[in-house]
């Protein structure tokens, strides 16, 4: 007789087998999929010419893909219902419409399927639904944030390709979350340089495929190479390395040593200073033991902007903040 553990194991195995049977094998193709933007041209050539060489997706990953498809279907169904009562009302149309982008040589370069379009205010705006891992989605507040992470960057290019292919200036990325889904507006014009770079990249890759050649190895990004599914078995690039910057100025070393000596006292001083200032806020003149305390009220100006206006004038400088941590080894 089967134990409960045996039954659980057998059901899990059957589930995995079911998903594996349904998986479609990868086949070579002569154009780039909209979802397949990669940093490395060489990787894109491999994906076009020999995708069958990669091992099949494991059942666990196939299950996650399936969950993503389910979420996409549910979210679009919800959006269609919500649209009837919204102000202004909107509807979900044109699901899975195919598009083809041609390169300068009139070859199909990028192809894809738009998840859906939102018909609102006489505009048919493309919509891409993504059900990424929550830890990825939590870091995304604006469309630009997609390009900060190697795992979401491709999704950004994918939607730009849809907008470009559809000739629509705006669209949306709908991100599934544990709470309310997040709808990110996307403006093609602001990202036109990215889209053009993608198209040029696709053209370059197709040139290599047609010529039967391989692009050079990716340079200076060994982290990307280590992430790549072709690394090691098909592609064996040299690995560059950054190195710690060597600062050998004796004066700097002495300053660091002195800083370390003062650290404990500084921490205590900061805490005490903060505590005392909180206690003594509002005391304009006072005496405590051997100490005289003087305080003065002063003007302070601040600008209270509405959130949307604040967002409009917020500029993010990728190198505006620098966090420094000094650790004694």
């Amino acid at each position, binding site marked *: 007789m089967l134990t409960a553990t045996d039954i659980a194991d057998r059901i899990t195995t059957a589930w995995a087998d079911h998903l594996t049977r349904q998986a479609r094998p990868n086949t070579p193709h002569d154009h780039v999929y909209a979802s397949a933007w990669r940093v490395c041209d060489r990787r894109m050539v491999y994906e076009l010419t020999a995708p069958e060489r990669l*091992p099949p997706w494991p059942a666990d990953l196939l299950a996650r893909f399936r969950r993503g498809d389910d979420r996409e279907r549910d979210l679009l169904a919800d959006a269609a219902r919500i649209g009837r009562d919204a102000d202004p009302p909107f509807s979900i149309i044109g699901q899975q419409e195919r598009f083809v982008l041609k390169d300068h040589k009139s070859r199909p370069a990028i192809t894809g399927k738009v998840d859906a379009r939102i018909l609102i205010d006489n505009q048919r705006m493309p919509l891409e639904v993504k059900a990424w891992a929550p830890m990825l989605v939590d870091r995304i507040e604006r469309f630009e944030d997609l390009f900060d992470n190697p795992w979401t960057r491709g999704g950004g290019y994918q939607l730009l390709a849809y907008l470009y292919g559809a000739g629509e200036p705006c669209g949306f990325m709908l991100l599934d979350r544990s709470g309310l889904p997040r709808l990110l507006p996307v403006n093609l014009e602001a990202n036109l340089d990215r889209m053009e770079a993608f198209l040029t990249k696709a053209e370059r890759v197709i040139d290599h495929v047609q010529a039967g050649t391989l692009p050079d190895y990716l340079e200076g990004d*060994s982290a990307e190479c280590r992430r790549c599914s072709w690394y*090691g078995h098909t592609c*064996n690039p040299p*690995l560059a*390395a950054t*190195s710690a910057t060597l600062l*050998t*100025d004796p004066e700097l070393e002495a300053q660091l040593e002195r800083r370390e000596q003062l650290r404990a006292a500084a921490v205590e001083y900061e805490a005490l200073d903060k505590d005392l200032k909180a206690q003594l806020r509002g005391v304009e003149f006072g005496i405590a033991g051997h100490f005289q305390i003087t305080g003065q009220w002063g003007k302070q100006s601040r600008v209270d902007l509405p959130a949307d206006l604040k967002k409009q004038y917020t500029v993010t400088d990728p190198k505006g903040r620098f966090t420094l941590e000094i650790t004694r080894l």
Partner: protein
Amino acid sequence: MTNERDEDQAATTALDLRRPDVPTTLGELAARKGEGLEILDARVTVLASARKAGLRLTSPADWVLFKSPEEHGGQVVGYLQDAGCDRVRDVTGIEIFGISVPEKVSGADPTEFHYIVRGSGRCKMTRQVVEDMEGGRSSTDDFCNGKRGVELELLVRKAARANLDGNIVRELAGMKAVPVEELEAAWSGTHKQISQCRLGRGFGTRDERVGGRSEKAPDIEPPVCQHCGSKGVYRPAKNDRKAFYGCPNYTKHPDKKFIVDSAEWAAKQARPAPADVPQTAANRGTPPPAASGAPPSADDIFKSPASREPGQEG
């Protein structure tokens, strides 16, 4: 006679020479007399700090510990695995280049094969270069279990490259046999601990390495080291030496020995434990505590503390 410009150039050169990646010779340093020693000291300090920073980036899961036999001193060293090498690589600036096409070596059985890949490496910090290093993996390795066909082929090839990368980093960064004390010092102030590392050769049987008991050990509870509280480990008899229990962490208290004769301990365990808790008015009538190892009953947990005062331990 030197002018201001010459002095400036000399100062700049001395500062540059403090960097370990700037080539110099012993003769050149010796010519600088006292300053030469200072330069040498600065270079050594930078290299030691870089090594420590690299070790600090690794995790216990990246290491396998090996122990030399007791008669050879019982030193414990750590071997950095391929995954950990990747973390160290960027600190020391190790570049990998000149990678060969992976070479397949077939075994007797069609499912048994090996892949070998060669490559070279250089360390930007020390300017050391290693050439034609080899990395290899076999289809019979543990990670290949359950894999077949193309998947197995790709997996072995990929692992061979990872092994080559690891071998180059281990060679150039000196991570093949790191004394456990050095690792412990590098991890001080972090949550990483030596006890979280995997144990390899020298730490007993496979069962013992994962915290189990040796097959040869008597089926009794081992004694506990009075110095550090660790469970004693059974050491079987060897030549003239009798079997004994020793402390698995004896390197942490080298001055305090813990050795218990196995036969004596077994005899002691076989005797019934003396009733060393005298009956007093306070404990008379109270049921004895459950034997160690036996789970307490619901009554032990919920009913016996009835007479306990608030705040009293029970």
